[in-house]
């Protein structure tokens, strides 16, 4: 009888190995069909009319000219006359037509009149935001920060900040909706395959049983694709009206305006330490915007529990568009503010940043030992001791180099979910769960766990995900997917296997509890000579397959990880251009299922983190209330050559792996902003206080001090 637990390190055939993702060939051959690629017969194309104002009342809508255009099949009103739009890009009217070009023409023929209202898109000044535009959250305090600041031998003060950024998923938000009678079929680019039925059902007044959701592959979500959204419902509504399938994908501009903002966070921070570097005081006053919603209260300082610390936060309500969870919500911002302020203090103390953080690592609490080990390892990997210099690279020339470090934490855990394993009499196996693969390798992880459990090669298991006809699985957010699906899969596959053992045991002259499945054989534990091949064992099922369910199992998973990252940058002080030359990332994530895709998560996070450290900003213009860069020319992502070398080390010692599976998507994206900012300060001798660290900001900072 197989127990529901992970195999020991010595008995892992697939788990933890470096395995290519099973849907890789499908994607890299261009044959994978994403939502954007679907084209059921008779499909219409939909386009949106959106608000040019940051805030306005809709006073009139005239769709008559569009309706008269031959080939226009359905119109959908998102924002009725009398209602308000709250950001530039807010959807007002949708139109579906025979071709994409025709839909564009029709959208242009729709007249909407607005009564513009007062707006705010700037998040720079909480106090002058105006009445009703900000909320002071309840302050937090431990010890006596003011007194501690007085008593500190060395203090440092600074203002730091990060602007709003967007998700900019490569595949825009959107869906294709098709009705068959009163059954709705949708392809949707989503992180939440099993969780959309109710949203559609209540919006369209059909039972949830009639909603069929499919998403086999999706082009990125990063926290922005949990809902069907107004445009998802609109596609279904227009498809019903027109009696034909409708595709509604946001165009790039609306994607960047409406489909998700990461909240900004700025803070004025004062910190103090004793001469020997012991941190004793923290005080911060922060502000930021999450659009019209308040957003959460940031936890400052991040990770490090300074004995005397005070924090106050003000949320600013703006018309920048709706905030959505962005990979590791709030953590990159909190991490950057904390690590930058502390690194500036270390510089004032004239300490090596690494020594300073090591000195205070005890303040991180239960994970102090982990961070210490990871810091030393990362330092070794990047050559910290050899390369370190105090603030300001004094070597001649206009290229200045510097080092910076940061560390982070994330919970992980596992979301609730179910998996179903079916073993057929012919020996074939299917595992099915209504989960989704965002590109993280979920499909592959499920296959690896099932194959390992059943003692079969990976390609002997058919993995079915991405459809809500399968047993439901949670939304992919918060790095909870791998914990959810690996434990539900392990549980269901083990349960199915035990049923197979029961059928096979008599022919081996033993009982189910004495059997194991290894290398395509069912065999007696301790006596490999007594075995039968998998297929033969399955043949004993007669005509009825084994079907076993499993659900998220806390005994197989855990939460809470630590990671340390270090960055080396080169800054051209003539042009202000910063290059990320090297990053090292040391990361723990519990038991690793697939080393290859796990490493890719970390590489990818370092790159995504470099993007927000150096390039990304949703630039809002208070004069007009509009976003100045809703396109990919000016909403910048890094290119392949903008990224230096990245070295990743995953913690695989038993003490880490024994905890079970923990999610990995978010943690490594938290530190890059802080590590890169600290490296830039180390290079040029002065803090560039805002991210992204653009050339103009570098030159402005240099104008205030540092090397020139």
């Amino acid at each position: 009888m197989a127990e529901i637990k992970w195999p020991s390190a010595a008995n892992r055939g697939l788990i933890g190995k470096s395995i290519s993702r099973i849907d890789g060939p499908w994607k890299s051959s261009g044959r994978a069909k994403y939502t954007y690629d679907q084209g059921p017969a008779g499909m219409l194309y939909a386009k949106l009319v959106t608000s040019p104002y940051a805030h306005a009342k809709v006073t009139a809508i005239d769709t008559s000219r569009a309706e008269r255009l031959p080939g226009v099949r359905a119109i959908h009103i998102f924002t009725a006359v009398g209602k308000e739009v709250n950001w530039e890009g807010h959807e007002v009217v949708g139109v579906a037509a025979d071709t994409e070009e025709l839909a564009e023409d029709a959208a242009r023929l729709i007249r909407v009149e607005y009564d513009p209202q007062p707006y705010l898109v700037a998040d720079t000044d909480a106090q002058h935001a105006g009445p009703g535009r900000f909320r002071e959250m309840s302050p937090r305090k431990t010890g006596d920060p003011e007194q501690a600041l007085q008593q500190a031998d060395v203090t440092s003060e600074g203002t730091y900040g990060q602007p709003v950024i967007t998700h900019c998923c490569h595949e825009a938000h959107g869906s294709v909706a098709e009705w068959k009678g009163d059954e709705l079929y949708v392809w949707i680019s989503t992180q939440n395959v099993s969780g959309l039925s109710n949203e559609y059902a209540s919006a369209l007044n059909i039972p949830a049983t009639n909603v069929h959701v499919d998403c086999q592959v999706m082009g990125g979500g990063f926290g922005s694709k949990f809902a069907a959204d107004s445009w998802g419902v609109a596609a279904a509504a227009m498809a019903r009206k027109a009696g034909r399938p409708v595709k509604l994908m946001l165009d790039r501009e609306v994607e960047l305006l409406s489909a998700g903002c990461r909240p900004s966070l700025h803070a004025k921070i004062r910190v103090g330490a004793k001469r020997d570097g012991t941190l004793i005081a923290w005080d911060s006053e922060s502000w930021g915007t999450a659009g019209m919603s308040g957003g959460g209260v940031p936890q400052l300082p991040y990770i490090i529990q300074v004995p005397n610390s005070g924090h106050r936060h003000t949320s600013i309500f703006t018309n920048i568009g709706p905030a959505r969870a962005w990979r590791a919500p709030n953590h990159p911002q909190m991490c950057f503010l904390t690590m930058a302020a502390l690194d500036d203090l270390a510089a004032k103390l004239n300490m090596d940043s690494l020594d300073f953080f090591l000195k205070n690592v005890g303040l991180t609490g239960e994970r102090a030992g982990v961070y210490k080990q990871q810091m030393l390892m990362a330092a070794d990997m990047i050559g910290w001791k050899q390369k370190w210099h105090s603030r300001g690279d004094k070597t001649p020339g206009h290229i200045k180099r510097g080092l910076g470090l940061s560390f982070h934490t994330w919970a992980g855990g596992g979301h609730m979910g179910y998996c179903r394993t079916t073993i057929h009499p012919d020996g074939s196996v299917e595992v099915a769960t209504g989960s989704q693969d965002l590109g993280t390798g979920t499909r592959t992880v499920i296959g690896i766990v099932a194959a390992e459990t059943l003692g079969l090669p990976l390609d002997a298991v058919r993995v079915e995900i991405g459809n809500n006809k399968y047993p439901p699985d949670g939304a992919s957010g918060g790095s909870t997917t791998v914990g959810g699906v690996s434990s539900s899969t392990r549980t269901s596959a083990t349960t199915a296997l035990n049923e197979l053992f029961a059928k096979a045991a008599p022919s081996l002259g033993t009982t189910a509890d004495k059997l194991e499945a290894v290398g395509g054989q069912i065999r007696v534990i301790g006596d490999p000579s007594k075995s039968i091949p998998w297929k033969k064992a399955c043949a004993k099922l007669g005509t009825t397959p084994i079907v076993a369910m499993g659900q998220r199992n806390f005994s197989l998973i855990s939460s809470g990880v630590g990671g340390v990252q270090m960055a080396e940058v080169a800054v051209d002080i003539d042009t202000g251009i910063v290059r990320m030359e090297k990053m090292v990332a040391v990361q723990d994530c519990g038991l690793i299922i697939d080393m290859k895709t796990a490493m890719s998560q970390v590489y990818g996070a370092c790159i995504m983190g470099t993007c927000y450290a150096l390039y990304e900003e949703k630039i809002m213009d208070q004069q007009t209330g509009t976003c100045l860069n809703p396109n990919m020319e000016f909403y910048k992502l890094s290119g392949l050559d903008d990224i230096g070398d990245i070295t990743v080390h995953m913690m695989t010692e038993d003490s880490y792996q024994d905890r079970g599976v923990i999610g990995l998507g978010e943690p490594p994206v938290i530190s890059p902003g802080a590590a890169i900012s600290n490296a830039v300060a180390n290079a040029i001798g002065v803090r560039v206080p805002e991210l992204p660290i653009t050339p103009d900001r570098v030159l402005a900072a240099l104008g205030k001090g540092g090397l020139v």
Partner: protein
Amino acid sequence: MADQDDLHHSTGSGEPGDDNSASDRESSKGFSRRQFIKGTGLAVSASVFVPDGLLKAAMPEETPGVSGPGEVPVRLRINGREHQLRLEPRVTLLDALRNRLDMTGAKKVCDRATCGACTVIMDGHPVYSCTVLAIDAQGKSIETIEGLAPEGKLHPVSQAFVDNDAQQCGFCTPGFVMAVKAFLDKHPHPTYDEVRASLGGNLCRCGTYMGIRKAALEAAAKMAGKGGRL
């Protein structure tokens, strides 16, 4: 597979010298495909407004001087096969591929010559198909990712993307595969630095660049061993 150099005829778009060794050296230093394609894209669109010999040559014979505004017959040679379509002149090559021919490997992401997700190879050059009009692609040899290998088989570049996990969500991947393929066709023995310098015309949101660099080098090594062809 057609020899691109034979098929190449100038679009008057100011391409960087492509086929001689001097420019090979150039390109390894500062070849920016993004800039090059932006140039091409602009020139191609501009030709709609300023009809010239080039435009006339590209247009079907039955249309005198001006195309459209309604649908016009368009002939495209894609992966060695002729396709006869009726399209409005404003339809891009990308939309023609995706919406009319169900060739959805090329993706629409930025739709304005920034990200490379829509990359196809036209007369041997990688182009952003979102910024080439279908009518202007007539008479050219167009290679899309669907033509790289028969269904069920993988081109060495696609295989290298799998082996090096050079893809996460995979939405940028077909465009990257085509960009790498076009690059290796011209530079079969690139160095790591040349790979880095030459694939700046495509963007990936998931951050797969480490894998892509390795994949390009590995594919180059494999293809060189096979004479550079599948």
